[in-house]
């Protein structure tokens, strides 16, 4: 399936939602054709993932306009989209896009701010991902390898991907 991930945050940004977006793209790309549309400057590359970056260094209005246009264009080539919450993506979703989309509430700070745009995006979405996997446990050189935490992390991603696959299969 051709999947578009639209995200306000993407590495090298350090926010948890940025790491989530990249990991989601990496894992989905094992089974699907994945493109990422991100507000980013020089995003981290991933094999088998097409990255479309709207440079965050541009003035805000120009950047939002460019992102909205790019989202409409990229959504036309996708069978489904996963939109990660955040005002800059929610605003771009406002006019509507060609592909049905899943709305992922990965950015808890943005979710807490809420607002009209977020409510509108939730209403437009085909499905909602309320919970996302936690950040990857760190491997600390002077500590034992966190085998249990890594196993839990992997399990949470498996469950998360199962949820997404169920939504995608239901739509087929």
């Amino acid at each position, binding site marked *: 399936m051709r999947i578009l991930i639209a995200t306000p945050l993407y590495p*090298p940004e350090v926010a948890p939602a940025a790491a989530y977006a990249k990991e989601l793209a990496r894992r989905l790309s094992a089974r699907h054709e994945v493109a990422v549309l991100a507000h980013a400057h020089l995003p981290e590359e991933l094999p088998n993932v097409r990255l479309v970056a709207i440079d965050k260094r541009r003035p805000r209005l120009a950047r939002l306009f460019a992102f909205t246009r790019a989202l409409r264009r990229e959504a036309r080539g996708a069978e489904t989209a996963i939109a990660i919450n955040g005002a800059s993506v929610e605003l771009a979703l406002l006019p509507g896009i060609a592909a049905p989309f899943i709305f992922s509430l990965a950015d808890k700070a943005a979710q807490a701010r809420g607002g009209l745009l977020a409510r509108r995006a939730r209403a437009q979405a085909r499905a909602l991902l309320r919970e996302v996997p936690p950040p990857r446990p*760190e491997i600390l050189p*002077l500590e034992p390898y966190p085998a249990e935490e890594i196993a839990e992390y992997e399990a949470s991603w498996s469950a998360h991907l199962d949820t997404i696959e169920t939504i995608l299969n239901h739509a087929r």
Partner: protein
Amino acid sequence: MPDSRKIWEAYVGRELAGLRPILAREGYALDAAQPHLAGERHLHRAVTTESGRKLILLGARADGSRVVIKATSDPESKQELIHERERRAELNKINFAYELFASPRELFFGSRGSYLISVQEFIEQERPYLARPLKEQFAYALGAFKAQEGAHATTYGHRRRIERVFGRLEARDYLRNSDSFKDGIAVALSNDTRPATLIARTAAVLRENTGVLEQYGDFLTHTDFVPHNFRIKDGQIYLLDYSSLRFGNKYEGWARFLNFMALYNPPLTRALEEYVRKNRTQEESAALHAMRLYRLSELIWYYARNLPHTEGDLRRLTEARVAFWADMLEAALEDRELPQERIDAYTELRDALRSEDEKERQKGLH
């Protein structure tokens, strides 16, 4: 006695004569011993900031509580103090920082006569950073780097906001600086071509890695993040020096710290490098490596340009420093560690050549 030392000592004498009565009127008494005025202080300018002529003094309030006093009558240094204060205030206001450092409480900031005076509480720490167990050192260092990385100026608005107060270096600035270290060293050390050759190799590595230097740019970074610029109390890191904060490559501060620890505590350097290798992208490891080379080049240039201001043992020590850090740079270029025997030999020579007042100044510093 070299001119720079005579000039410094005369300056200190004049400034203290003017400052003592002013500070006494404000309720501050200076300690009899002032380690930050002695030793090699006359040579010191922070590696990356144009630290001008100011006094850093230790003292106490009438209630006995300890304070750190920064004071100057030099117009440029006044601007530095004002600028440092602005950075400290701005850091607490920026809305895109995830974490913040703790700062010592400011007790006084203002002009008295021809002096600008800044007084902050002295942070007593239970023990110096390097006396802590390795795991603690690692945890504090990593926490501090994450706090710096938490401020990432990604948008047009962020960049405009930080530009005036903090300043910013981009990949092209690092390349330009690297070329200037190379050219400067070639002149300063005309009889010894090895450091210039090593720095030329560094410049080539930086050029190869321009992409990652740019990609991991615009992060808050403390360019002189070493133990004498922070203190730890009740599990909290207090940043003492805000003048070395700027936005630049994410690994610029890491690199300074890792190079410092490659001399003082190599297992900590190894642990932090391993952390980056195991938890971050390959590109980030490349950025860290490139920045370590850059900061080593800068350090060699710093000592090389001090050579003309030294004589006697201090001259020999400065030459030994250039040779040692050149060895460290060569090892880093070849992706190997400097043998412990080389570190021990340098440390022994350094301790033999250091003056007594410099040894005193170094006590408990790290």
